[in-house]
Every structure is written in C-alpha cells, then in structure tokens.
C-alpha cells in the first residue's frame, strides 16, 4: 500500500533534512498514527505521500506507484484515489454542506446523477443527514470536520490521510471524529493520521510511528503516544 525506502527530504536552502533515511511499510487496511513534536517531519511525511513534494533521495510508493517517477499529469489521477482531511477543515464558505461535498465530485467530472445520489449517502454516513443545505459557518467545528471527512470519503478512497483532524476540536467532539475515522477504517480504507492528541492515541491502541528531527525513532504495532519507561 505505502512503502518508504530510505527516504530523505531536504528543502532548498536548508541544511538539516526534514526527513532522514526513513523506511517503512504500511499495509492495506491499517490505521496508523503519526506522532512527533512540531518540526519532526510529520507534515513532510504526509506531503510526500500526497506528492506535494518529491523525495530528495529514496523512493516513495503509494498505491503501487513510485511517486518520484509519476509524471505531473498523472498526479491528479493518483490523488483521486486518496482522501485528505486537515485541521482547518478547508471547506468553501460560500457553498452549502452538500455543495462542498459535491464539489469534490464535480471537479473530477462525475455525472450529475451520481453526485445527487452519492452526496446524501455519504452525509448520512458521517452523521450529518438532513444538514445538506446548511452553510459551513452555521455548523459547529466538529460538524464542519465531518463535512470535510465526507468530502474526503465520497470517492471511496483506498487511503485517507488526516493531518491533525482533531487539532481544533474539544476532546468530546474529537472522540466523535475518531469513531468516524475508525468506522471508515473498518470499511477497508487505510487511514494515516498525524496527531498531537495523546488521549486519542492511547485509547485507540493502533500502530504508532514516531518521528523526531526527521528520523524514524519508533514504530509500534499497538502503541501509545509517548515512550513508557
């Protein structure tokens, strides 16, 4: 599903690599937490998977494709097979909830009939049935993140990448979002989530990958947030 082979990423004009010689495998259907302090390389790790950046050395394979060799015009096709969720939701404020989700399908040219059928289904799945015509501004943070998850999942991606999806939410709301991501994971979608939320990582007991100053320092199959000494 995902393989990093000795991946090093050095940004231009910076001496210290953002990622240093990272190698790992993530299998289909896994749920993986990516932890580490700010500047540890989590974001770079995610950006490499999304092909927003290219590795300086080494190879990144996502969904069976070598991203270093993937030509630019094939990148959109690749991104359609993965969903992304961010801390700041990234919804369009002037579109309704339904339109925000539909937008993801519109811009990849899905037929209108299919959009009209799929959007309510996926909103129902994330627990926002009946809120299709509300504006994002009228919703709570947790609900807005559910819209973002719905948009990420509406394509039924093989892989869902979440960058601190609970970073802006209170603990109780976060639990709701995690339950949703867990449910999506159970449908067979691989989920990779970067987070600072210790409680959630400790509760879920899933695979934890920890980065520190660009190095892979821990990879536990049923891990917790911090080291236990």
């Amino acid at each position, binding site marked *: 599903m995902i393989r990093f082979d000795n991946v090093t990423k050095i940004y231009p004009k910076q001496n210290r690599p953002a990622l240093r010689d990272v190698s790992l495998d993530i299998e289909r259907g896994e749920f993986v937490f990516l932890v580490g302090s700010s500047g540890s390389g989590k974001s770079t790790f995610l950006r490499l998977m*999304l092909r927003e950046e290219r590795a300086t050395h080494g190879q990144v394979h996502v969904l069976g494709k070598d991203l270093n060799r993937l030509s*630019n*015009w094939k990148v*959109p*096709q*690749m*991104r*359609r*097979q993965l969903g*992304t969720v961010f801390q700041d939701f*990234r919804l*369009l404020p002037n579109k309704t909830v339904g339109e925000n989700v539909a*937008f*993801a399908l*519109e*811009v*990849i*040219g899905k037929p*209108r009939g299919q959009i009209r059928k799929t959007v309510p289904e996926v909103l129902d799945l994330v627990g926002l049935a009946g809120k299709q015509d509300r504006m994002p501004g009228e919703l709570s943070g947790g609900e807005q993140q559910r819209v973002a998850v719905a*948009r990420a999942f509406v*394509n039924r991606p093989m892989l869902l990448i979440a960058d601190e999806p609970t970073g802006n939410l209170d603990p109780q709301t976060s639990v709701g979002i995690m339950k949703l991501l867990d449910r999506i994971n159970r449908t067979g979608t691989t989920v990779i989530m970067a987070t600072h939320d210790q409680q959630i990582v400790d509760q879920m007991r899933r695979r934890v990958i920890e980065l520190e100053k660009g190095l892979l320092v821990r990879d536990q199959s049923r891990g917790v947030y911090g080291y236990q000494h």
Partner: protein
Amino acid sequence: MRAQFIFSEIGVGLRRNLTMTFAVVVSVALSLALFGSALLLNKQVDVMKGYWYDKVNVSIFFCNKADQETSKNCGKGAVTKQQKDVIKADLDKMPLVETVTYESSQEAYKHYKEQFGDSLLASSLTPDQMQESYRIKLTDPTKYEVVASAFADRPGVQEVQDQRNLLKNLFELLRNLNFAAVFIMALMLVVALMLIVNTVRVSAFSRRRETGIMRLVGASSLYIQVPFIMEAAVAGLLGAGLACVLLVAGRYFMIDNGMNLAEKLPLINFIGWDQVIRVLPLVLAVGLLMPAVAAFVALRKYLKV
C-alpha cells in the same frame, strides 16, 4: 468537464475583478485597434502603389491624340511608331537600363481600372484616352535624371516620370505613421499583457482556497486552469470586439463621413470595406489567443497545480 460549472466560475471571476477586467478590456482594445490600423495602413499603401510602382523606376509617357491640345510637348500630335522604335533602340543601348516594358493604351486602361475600380473618374475614362508608355527598370534607381534628360525632349514624348518620386513623400508619411502605430501598439500590448498577468495573479490568489481543494481532490491541472484562461480570453475578446468597432468607425468617419477624405481627395484610391472586414477576424483571433496565452504563462507562476 462540465461547461456550466466552468462558465459560472468565469462569471464570478470577472465580476470580482471588475476594475481590473475593465482595464484589460480597454488596453487590449487600444492595442488591437492600433494593430488593425497598422495592417490597414499597409494595405492603403499597397492600394496606392498601383500596378507599376514596385516593378519599374521610370516611365516614359507618349503623346496620344487627346494630348495635342492639353500638353505643350505634344503639339505635333500622337506619337508615331517610328518615334517609339528610335527611343526603344536608344534605351536598349543604355547600360543603365535593365528592362524596358511597353504598355499599350489598352493595358494602361486595364491597370487603371484594376486600381481605381468603379470610382467616378475611372468610369468616365475610355481606353484611347490612356497613354502608351515605356516602363523602365534601372540598374541604379537613383540615376533617374539620366533617362529624364535624354528623352524628355524627344518628339512624341509627353513626359518622363520618376515613378517613385511621385508618391514618395506620401508613402514616407504613411510609413512613419505605421511605425508610430506599431510602436504604440507594442507599448499598449506590453501594458495589456502586464495587466492580464496581474489580473490572473489576483484572481489566483483570491481563489486559492478553491484551487487548493480542487488540487487535493484530484482535479486535473487543465480543469483548474481553464476558468482563469477563459476569464482572460473573454476579457480579451471583449477588447477585440471594441477594437473592431473602433476600426470600422475609423474607416467610416475618416473616409466616408466626417472627414470625408474620399470626396476631398478623389485622386487617391482608398481601401474598401472588404479590406477592413478582412482584418477583423485577425484582430478577434489575436484578442482571443494573446490574453489566453498570457494567462496560461502567468498561471505557471502563480497557481500551483
């Protein structure tokens, strides 16, 4: 790709940047109007040059029957075959002369008709009113005087004419006008292109949220770029349309009405509507494509895809 989606995006983009769009439309209109004027000035020069202008340097016109009263050189009546043969033989002997072509009055009539068409003057003319002539090409065009002094006083010769001098000043003026038009056009074009680049930049910035999301969900780069490019193309097309109106109005007010040059300068043959209309599609095409290409180039820089 869904047309309706794209068109609504274009409308939103153009309205959001109304002042900038207006500036683009006006600058494109002015530069294209100048572009069209330059083309038309060139055509005007072509039309005025007539059949012989680029082919010969000197023309020796012979007397015809009608000249007997009107021209003092032709007191002895129309030119005879013998007189022409002597001149031809002398011309052939001159090393300065490259070629000599004989134009009969029939041919002269034909060329005149071609140039002036159905103007008032041309329709009252008959073939035997036209003069026979030798059209001479010189090895050195500046040595016109040699031919003029040698043949001007020959019997049967009505006039020796330096073909180029005739319209030289006028053509120089037109050429300078043309240069000025092209220069200002180039300047306006640069302004227009810079405005388009800036419009695209502002547009891309104000829509970075949408385009960012489009990128994430896997919209193709073409799909993301097309609304921006179409926006520039629509503004350019509006400008080109305005330029076409300016050109048509210019032809109308300068030649037909207003300044009414056609009546004031009856001896000059002006470009017709067909030539103006033939320029318009070119103006429209340039107005459509140039901003689109400029926007495309600007997007490389300002829109990450």
